[in-house]
């Protein structure tokens, strides 16, 4: 089963609006990462948040992490049509080298 589960599975918004995606996980983690994927091919790393961090910013991206609830959220502010993509959270689990990916949120930003 997937360690990370994103919510919603799909999201459609208008350009300029904010997009919020959530990720829940089950076991203790060292860090949580968010990736973006265009057209079902290679993934691009967006941001990494460590287990002892609660919030992190990168440009129009804001990530929060609540280890007590085992959840994270990704906020994209002032969205653009070019933000249309699938977004995945990935957890680095203690004792495991590879990342465990969720099933992703498909974001559609309408121009």
């Amino acid at each position, binding site marked *: 089963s997937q360690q990370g589960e994103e919510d919603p599975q799909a999201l459609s918004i208008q350009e300029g609006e904010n997009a919020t995606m959530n990720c829940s996980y089950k076991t203790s983690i060292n*860090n949580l990462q968010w990736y973006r994927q265009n057209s079902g091919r290679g993934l691009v790393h967006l941001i990494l948040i460590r287990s002892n961090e609660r919030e992190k910013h990168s440009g129009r991206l804001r990530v929060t992490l609540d280890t007590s609830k085992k959840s994270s959220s990704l906020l994209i502010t002032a969205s653009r049509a070019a933000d249309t993509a699938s977004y995945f959270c990935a957890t680095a689990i203690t004792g495991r080298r590879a990342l465990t990916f969720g099933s992703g949120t498909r974001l559609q930003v309408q121009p």
Partner: protein
Amino acid sequence: GAGVSQSPSNKVTEKGKDVELRCDPISGHTALYWYRQSLGQGLEFLIYFQGNSAPDKSGLPSDRFSAERTGGSVSTLTIQRTQQEDSAVYLCASSLVGSQGNYEQYFGPGTRLTVT
């Protein structure tokens, strides 16, 4: 370019044939990962290489799947006697020292495998 490269980008094969997928990681990255992504799904971990250590093969779905990494650089994923359920995009990623997965992974563009 200094990114992760994969070849071929697309592969169509008949059921029962063997296929080899290649990954060239970023120079200097000691950790290399193979993932599989079925249509509309998340990534499924297959195998992990770190330096000269024994690979973590815990994600390989069957003994038809194998991988090697020569000279700590290029990796080849081999699927023997392919089945239709093997159809997917196979993604390779590399990173700096993969201890506890603390480092971001850089992904290649993937190989889309179709088994007919």
